[in-house]
Structure formats: structure tokens, C-alpha cells
């Protein structure tokens, strides 16, 4: 007998309380990255853009444009630059305005400009 079935019977309720209450499984979800502008340089931004497999990152001058809608949360940018990129932990990203999903990150790292 599967363990989840026994556990479900013992605990009674298996249904999540989301959205009324946070769900514990949310902490394990892959989430889009957040960037530290102070650690980003032009070179690093270019490397991140080349690494991204889904065209979610584009550099324009001294600004890194991140499209969270196109991001697949694969984590490759975090592997390239763990000092500059971390997981956001945000999964509630649904919106009615596409502009809300596009972030403009200034490159403030040493020698960025």
C-alpha cells in the first residue's frame, strides 16, 4: 500500500489550503532568478545572456533586461554566476500586464560602464 495513501488516511485531509494558507511544497518549486546589480558587469551580463536557453535575458547598454515570462527557471544563470544570481522563491507571478514580468536591472558592477 503506498505510503502517501496511509499518511492521507491517518491525517485525514490531504487537500492544500492554498490560497487561504501557504502550501509547504511551495518552498521546493523552481523559481525565476533575482539579480544583484552590484555584482553584474557587462561581461557577466553577456555570459548570462548566452547561457539562457529561453531568451529571457537581453543586455541593452548598461541594462540587463530580464523577462520572467520567458524564463524557464532552469537555474543555468545561477550556476554561471552564483554571486550575482539567486533564486527568487516567488512562484505567484501570474499577471494581466506583460510589462509586469519584464525587469530592467542596471549593471552596477565594477567596470560595468
Amino acid at each position, binding site marked *: 500500500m503506498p505510503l502517501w495513501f496511509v499518511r492521507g488516511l491517518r491525517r485525514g*485531509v490531504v487537500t492544500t489550503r492554498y490560497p487561504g494558507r501557504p502550501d509547504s511544497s*511551495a518552498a521546493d*518549486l523552481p523559481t525565476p532568478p533575482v539579480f544583484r546589480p552590484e555584482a553584474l558587469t557587462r561581461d557577466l551580463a553577456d555570459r548570462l545572456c548566452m547561457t539562457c536557453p529561453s531568451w529571457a535575458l537581453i543586455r541593452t547598454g548598461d541594462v540587463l533586461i530580464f523577462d520572467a515570462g520567458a524564463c524557464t527557471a532552469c537555474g543555468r544563470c545561477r550556476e554561471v554566476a552564483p554571486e550575482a544570481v539567486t533564486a527568487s522563491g516567488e512562484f505567484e*507571478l501570474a499577471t*494581466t500586464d506583460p510589462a509586469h514580468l519584464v525587469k530592467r536591472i542596471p549593471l552596477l558592477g565594477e567596470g560595468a560602464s
Partner: protein
Amino acid sequence: MKLPDTGGTEGSPPGPSTDETAEELRRSVARQFGRSLHIRTLDTGSCAACEQEIRLLAAPHYDLHRLGFFFTPAPRHADLLMVTGPMIRAFDIAARKTYEAMPGPKLVVATGACALGGVYQPDAFTHGTVGETLPGDVLIPGCPPSPLALLQGLLVAVDRLAAKVQDLSFIQNGGAR
């Protein structure tokens, strides 16, 4: 055999029916539409990961029905079109026909990174984004979006639909057309 008590865990109130937020949302949907809200899914060339997550919404853990949402196979019964995939060009006519078959007010929910312009670039075979063919009213990022993210997207969609319902003249006129 005596069934176990259906009380919640860690001191939470017993039974899913006591979840006030879910109940309030269900009532809100029923108040706005006079019934529950029905979803039609449309796969326009996705890898089926999004469909797998969407299917999980009906599983006991997420139990979409407690919120007043239901899936329907017929676009004529649907209020909400949940579109996945990068919208391949071969699907243009079918997608438009599906959208036109839906009664108003209706919404299109672009689901997943493919539908939002990631993963596939526009080429001879695909538009690369749902917005090229259908109006993307609500956007749910993720590859694939988790069922929790889909739930949040549906909540955003309900607010948007509620606004559309208010815009309809026969609602404003107390039901008179």
C-alpha cells in the same frame, strides 16, 4: 472499519469545507456568473508538461473544484481558455475557432513559458507566443507552472473576468438587454 477523523493537521480547522477563503472564492465566482467557472484547455504545440500540471489541479491535493472551477471539453461551455504551447502556425484556425465558439465574457490564459514568448522564437512553424493569435488576458509564467502557480493565475483571471462582467450592459441594466 472506522474511518479516521477528517480533522486537519497541526491544529488547523477540520475539513476542507471550513476553508473560508476557498468558500468565499467559490461564492464570489457563483455570484459573478450565477454558476461555477468552466475551463477549456488548448494545447498549441506544448511538450505536455503544462498539461500534466493542469491535470494535477483536479487531483485531491489541489482539488480545483472546491474553488468553483471545472474543466469542460466543449468551448461552448467554457468561460476561460487555458492555452499552452508556443502557438504553432498550423493551429491558427483551430485556435481562433475555439475562441470564437466560447460565449462572452471570456478570457484567454496564456500558460507556461512557451506561451509567453520564451523557449521558441518565431519562425516558419510557430508564432512563439500565444499573443500573436489570441488575446492573452492573463499570463502565467513557469516551465511548467506548478499547480499552485496555476491556481494563483486562475484567481487573477477571476478578478479580470469579474471586471468584464461588470462591463456588460445587460448586467448593468439589471439583466435587461
